[in-house]
């Protein structure tokens, strides 16, 4: 079956959920790929929506230098701001300033 392609299947569990990769099917074209995606990722009524994409259409990035670079980036994430002590100090000073 050398003309068969591999199709990646993404599924949405419930309305509003993100599309999540489920697996892949072999099929000669998009029409049958869709039917087979329904069978493997939807025949038990377990999916709200399916996307079927030829594997070659996917461009992958898994380079750690790009995705997990070494320098501190905590300024980009909520966990990078710890205000507990500053807040306590500010409240204490404000209490002293009250008439």
């Amino acid at each position, binding site marked *: *079956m*050398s*003309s*068969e392609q*591999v199709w990646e299947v993404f599924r949405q569990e419930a309305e509003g959920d993100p599309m999540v990769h489920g*697996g892949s099917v072999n099929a000669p074209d998009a029409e049958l790929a869709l039917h087979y995606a329904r069978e*493997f990722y939807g025949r038990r009524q377990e999916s709200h929506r399916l996307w079927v994409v030829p594997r070659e259409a996917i461009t*992958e990035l898994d380079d750690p230098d790009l995705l997990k670079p070494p320098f501190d980036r905590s300024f980009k994430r909520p966990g990078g701001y710890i205000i507990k002590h500053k807040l306590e100090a500010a409240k204490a000073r404000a209490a002293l300033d009250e008439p």
Partner: protein
Amino acid sequence: MDQQARPTQPSGDAEAFYAHVGSGGKVEADDWMPDEYRAAVLKFVEMHANSELMGVLPERDWILRAPNLKRKLALTSKIQDEVGHAQLLYRVAEDLGKPRDAMLADLLAGKTKFHNVFHYPTRSWGDVGIIAWLVDAAAIVSQQALRDSSYAPYARTMKKICWEESVHIMHGRDVVLTLMNGTDAQRALVQEALDRWWGPLMQMHGPPTDPARDKDLHWRIKAKNNEQLRQEFLSIYVPRIRELGLRIPDPVLRYDAPSGRWEYTEPDWDELRAVVTGHGPASQQRLEFRRLNFADTQWVRDALGGSAAAAA
């Protein structure tokens, strides 16, 4: 490299790789991996895929014979799921570099193996219950342990398979319970089936292996050894079998509290070896059935491959 396998990255360091998988790290299809690891995973997954495909045949005998509409749907659906599992597993194996046609050809030529339990005949509706309940249960004990495999595509597939298999065991247990609550003849069907299937079930997880030499364990392709799996199966299912009034055909079988393990008659490992190398009671008949079916349907696969190939 087959067009379906992803392009590999430049070669890496085997020592670092094994340290990575040994400490719980994961591997994806297009990551660099040592040839040995790739071959070991492929062999493991291929045998699993073959087993799902051959495992369809014992139950297919009964697909037209289910005694009511509910059982007809449940059994057809179960067998459908096994075919689906074969697809999922062959897909994982294909992405390691071996085309599906090559795997099917090797299976049909007797070059690759499938699990022992699928080499035995079925004789009655009692077998249908016992297989769906206990054979699937023994399989799920292995499969749950594989959900943490170092080879991530396999681990993810095992999660899906375990979820789907849980329904089968419930169906199997329901069939057995219904028979046990039925007539004397129905209870006898179950006991007789259990008498025949107990031996293969005890052999199913394989002989105890030396952990130091078990590469699949070392590289965390699998996470538990054969004996651990068998003990787990016995702990859960012996009580459930006995509480129905069924006799397990092993007079030695008992739980030894001080050692925390089940004692049992040593399974016939010679029988296991003979069976998985194609000398089981139904091995050749089933392989021949698949060969004929495969030959009969080749024109369809060729037709899908494009008009040029369809001129057969």
